[in-house]
């Protein structure tokens, strides 16, 4: 059965090929259907493999499927092999499951787009690359998938490359930004891989984790490797300092934002860290750095989300913030909890994005919450499912987000109380902005009458995935209830066990999470529904910060001024001065010297026979003299 694992990623690849070569002649519906079925079949196979894995004894739940030897050069050997264990199969299920729903949703959402075929080719290609990323049993194979999803992300962010507006500028530039920022992270990945290989001579995850466990790395080396991996993770998973591409990535179609920039691709960094947990156990400093970065990202991104007015931007910052939680989780060593949050987040964030997409579908692209309002009456399904997603995001019991976020915060509380407090503050803000979104968009009175009059509920092809995801967002918590921890136990063979914190601590964390979540919601309700001004008064000391928040702490401007522009100036200098004067000068100099020499020797070739006879004669004399006096 496990031998069939290659079908997982081959099916989307087949979908790509069919749509690529035959899509011209097919109905739009058929194209969408083929793409969806390809991913759906992957999902079915994923479920079968998952069930198969469950039948194995716990110790044996790690299967390597060797497909072929990929690279063998001297002692450097990398196989094209798949690693099937609880972690990779969980990821497979999330990717293909959410992916299938989003494919189906996209059929309706992209119905009127002229590049429908291309869209589904990209989307299937993304699934293909993402599955390679999560299934590969070595760094290099994962890196191939890593770059593949980066490419898919680039293509889909810039999908409407010919559009331009005030928020994103040229959409193609948004894609370019994502690609370039990710290059910085990839640099870290590549250097880390090189260091790992030179140190332990393998790139296999199991081998590397074992080597780390047997102290084959020095403490300094393992910390450097992990910090480099962390750089890769901050790029892909949009963490400080490389998060800046994700808000711009919202230029892509909304289902893409849901699939790639919320549910799956951006979690690749978290997955990678969980996958290499053996290294991180040894790298205390790097782990703490990761946790700190995660907590700070969670906090700052949530604070930015407080004041954003574009629905997708709020969700984007929210995604950054939630990814920060996951990084906090892996940083403090609760890998199971992080993967749990990754799973639930995939459900509820995909749900929120799809619901936002549904709104966008109805308003023909308007997502400014200052123009929306009262949409509940016209779009009941969308608003209900959005409410469920917001509740899960806010961490309201018993929605899934509550349990997963609490599991991470509990791990932080046990290990780094300061980060816990930052995380808790972020949770408060999360609850607030989640319900701010909901109240402003769906409740109250319509702010733009004309827009409101044209609203309509989305077709079933869109609402059914919404309901399925809403159901998952509600109940996904049961897979890892506190004290039961079925998911963390399931993941233990792949991620290792960690000590359970004391009961009091756990109760405290649960209680605080609950209180904070509820308080955030109450604040949002008071502020946006009943218009009580105590919230405003409470926020008054932070009022001066508002422009900072609205402009995302001016990080983009900072980068532009201190990194991009100096680099651009350096590049301009290189191109205009160094290249033209020195490089071209060198090349032209060699050329002109050759030409001058040639021009000079050319005059020897005057075409007159006596001259040639003379040169012949000179040669004869030289040879004779050589033989008589020297030879």
């Amino acid at each position, binding site marked *: 059965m496990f031998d069939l694992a290659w079908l997982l990623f081959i099916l989307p690849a087949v979908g790509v090929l069919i749509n690529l070569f035959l899509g011209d002649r097919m109905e739009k519906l058929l194209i969408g259907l083929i793409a969806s079925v390809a991913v759906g079949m992957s999902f079915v196979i994923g479920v079968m493999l998952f069930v198969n894995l469950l039948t194995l004894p716990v110790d044996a739940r790690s299967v390597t499927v060797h497909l072929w030897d990929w690279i063998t050069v001297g002692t450097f050997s990398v196989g094209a092999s798949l690693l099937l264990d609880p972690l990779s199969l969980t990821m497979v299920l999330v990717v293909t499951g959410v992916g299938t729903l989003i494919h189906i949703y996209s059929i309706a959402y992209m119905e009127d787009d002229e590049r429908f075929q291309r869209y589904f080719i990209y989307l299937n290609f993304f699934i293909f690359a993402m599955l390679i990323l999560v299934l590969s049993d070595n760094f290099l194979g994962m890196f191939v998938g890593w770059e593949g999803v980066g490419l898919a992300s680039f293509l889909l962010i810039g999908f409407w490359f010919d559009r331009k507006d005030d928020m994103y500028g040229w959409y193609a530039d948004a894609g370019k930004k994502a690609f370039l920022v990710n290059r910085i992270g990839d640099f870290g990945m590549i250097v880390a891989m090189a260091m790992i290989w030179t140190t332990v001579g393998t790139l296999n995850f199991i081998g590397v984790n074992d080597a780390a466990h047997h102290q084959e790395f020095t403490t300094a080396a393992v910390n450097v490797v992990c910090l480099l991996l962390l750089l890769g993770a901050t790029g892909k998973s949009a963490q400080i300092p490389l998060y800046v591409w994700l808000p711009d990535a919202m230029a892509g179609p909304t289902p893409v934002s849901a699939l790639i920039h919320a549910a799956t691709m951006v979690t690749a960094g978290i997955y990678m860290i969980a996958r290499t947990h053996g290294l991180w156990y040894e790298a205390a400093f790097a782990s703490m750095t990761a946790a700190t970065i995660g907590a700070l990202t969670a906090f700052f991104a949530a604070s930015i989300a407080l004041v954003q007015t574009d629905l997708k931007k709020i969700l984007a910052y929210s995604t950054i913030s939630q990814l920060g939680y996951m990084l906090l989780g892996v940083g403090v060593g609760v890998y199971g909890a992080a993967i749990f949050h990754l799973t639930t987040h995939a459900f509820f964030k995909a749900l929120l994005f799809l619901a936002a997409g549904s709104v966008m579908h109805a308003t023909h692209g308007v997502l400014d919450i200052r123009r929306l309002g009262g949409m509940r009456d016209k779009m009941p399904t969308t608003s209900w499912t959005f409410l469920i997603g917001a509740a899960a995001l806010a961490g309201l019991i018993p929605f899934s987000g509550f349990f997963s976020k609490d599991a991470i915060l509990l791990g932080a509380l046990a290990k780094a109380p300061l980060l816990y407090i930052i995380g808790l503050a972020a949770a408060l803000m999360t609850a607030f902005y989640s319900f701010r979104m909901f109240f402003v968009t769906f409740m109250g009175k319509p702010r733009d009458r004309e827009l409101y009059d044209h609203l309509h509920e989305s077709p079933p092809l869109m609402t059914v995935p919404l309901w399925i995801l809403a159901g998952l967002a509600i109940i996904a918590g049961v897979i890892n209830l506190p004290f039961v921890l079925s998911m963390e136990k399931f993941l233990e063979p792949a991620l290792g066990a960690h000590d359970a914190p004391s009961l009091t601590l756990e109760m405290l964390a649960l209680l605080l999470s609950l209180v904070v979540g509820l308080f955030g919601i109450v604040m949002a309700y008071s502020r946006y529904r009943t218009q009580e001004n105590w919230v405003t008064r409470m926020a008054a000391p932070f009022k001066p910060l508002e422009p900072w928040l609205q402009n995302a702490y001016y990080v983009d401007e900072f980068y532009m001024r201190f990194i991009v522009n100096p680099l651009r100036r350096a590049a301009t200098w290189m191109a205009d001065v160094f290249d033209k004067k020195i490089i071209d000068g060198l090349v032209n100099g060699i050329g002109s010297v050759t030409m001058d020499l040639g021009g000079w020797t050319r005059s020897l070739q005057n075409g007159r026979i006596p001259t040639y006879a003379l040169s012949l004669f000179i040669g004869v004399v030289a040879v004779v*003299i050589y033989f008589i006096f020297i030879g």
Partner: protein
Amino acid sequence: MSWSLLFFILIGAVSVAAAVGVVSSRQPIHSALYLLMHFVTLAVLYITLDAQFLAAIQVIIYAGGIVILILFVIMLIGSNPVPGDPSIQTWGPFVGLGLGLVLLGSMVYTVMLAFDGVPAAPVGLVGGEPKAVGLTLFSQYVLPIQMVAVLLLVALIGALLVARRPKTDVKTTRSREAAAD
């Protein structure tokens, strides 16, 4: 000084004088006649070196063939002295002359040392008579002689091709002939 050396000096002097005559004559026809003389003196020298066969063909081929050919050509293209073009001033001849003197010096120097006191081993009974040369030529060198034959054939055809009048002329000649018929 033996008689043979005296004879050699006499013939050699005539030979050098003829060579100088070839180079220095203004008229090509004079050059050709000097060349004829030069070839004949060489034939005489061949006989003193026991190369009777070569002496014969030297006279037949060079004096009888090549010089006559050259004379024909002179007759064909005229023997007017070539007017010197004063615009072409060249240092080539002077360089050549200097180098030539260097070469002459070194060669004579070497030659004088080379076989000084080494007695000659005369070809003996066979000598350079036609029979001996013919036996060597058609036994040991039979393949090269075939190649020489081919070379001569190729040269013949090539010379015909190069010296032929352009095609158009041939055509008009032919049509004229046809009209005459």
